[in-house]
């Protein structure tokens, strides 16, 4: 299927897609909040975030909240572009399957 070619492998895992969609919608989200929302283990979530970071799709910032270290994640410009492209490809996949 031609539409599948537009899909970005970085977003093929549904947790990574959810991470990107949440960041596109809300701006900055902490590691702990992702863990709570996505119901994932530290190791699994860390691996998914690292994959997006390695692609250059995420930026991170370290901060302290009530003397505890917090890592904040945000979608980078290339990440937002890639997500838009991936979502357009997903729409094409669904449209092609319903014809």
């Amino acid at each position, binding site marked *: *299927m031609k539409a*599948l070619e537009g899909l970005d492998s970085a977003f093929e895992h*549904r947790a990574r*897609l*959810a991470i990107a*969609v*949440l960041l596109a*919608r*809300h*701006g*900055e*989200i*902490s*590691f*702990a*909040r*992702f863990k*709570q*929302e*996505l119901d994932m283990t530290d190791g699994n979530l860390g691996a998914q975030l690292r994959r997006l970071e390695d692609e250059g799709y995420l930026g991170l910032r370290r*901060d302290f*909240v*009530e003397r505890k270290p*917090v890592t*904040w994640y945000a979608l980078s410009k290339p990440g937002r572009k890639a997500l838009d492209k991936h979502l357009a490809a*997903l729409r094409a*996949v*669904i449209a*092609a*399957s319903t014809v």
Partner: protein
Amino acid sequence: MTDSERVQQDLDYVRNVVRHHDADLGVPAIYFLWAVIILVGFALPDLAARLAGRYWLLAGIGGGLLSWWLGARDAKRSGLNDVALGKRHGLHWLITGVAFLLSALPLIVGRGDPGAAVGNFLLIAGLSYALAGVHLNRPMLWSGLLMLAAYGALQLFAPPYTWTITGIVIALSLAWAGLSAQRARNAGSLQ
């Protein structure tokens, strides 16, 4: 499983995650803060009218700044820093503040009727809270509608202690909104 079925399942998962995120009812501490400010501030026109203007100038600005600080602290604690939403809140309440100042302008230049000005104040507050309920946090809608109903009662019947009674009702509705938000958060953190 076909590609389109897998895509559909992934999108369902994402939709559920996003929907869970959107269920935020606001910051409980901000509701409680404004319940207290409004309870005192709405009693003043009935009980000590000369203090009302100064009180609202100080409590309006101070309460706005404290709300901003509480919102920022809540964002840090909850791990969700939504800058765009924060800007929307800031712009909404800044416009409300400007409208309050404009409604007080006739009094400041000495040409206004105090009775009409306090009525306008209630109308602006009601409109601002109701629209905040539509666009920002739903529980504010009920407080806003109560204020608008109180404005109507004030204009039609001019009953005694309308301001005090309205303040009590709004404070109770805000306290209820704060408790609902707190309960929703506790329920979420237990899941």
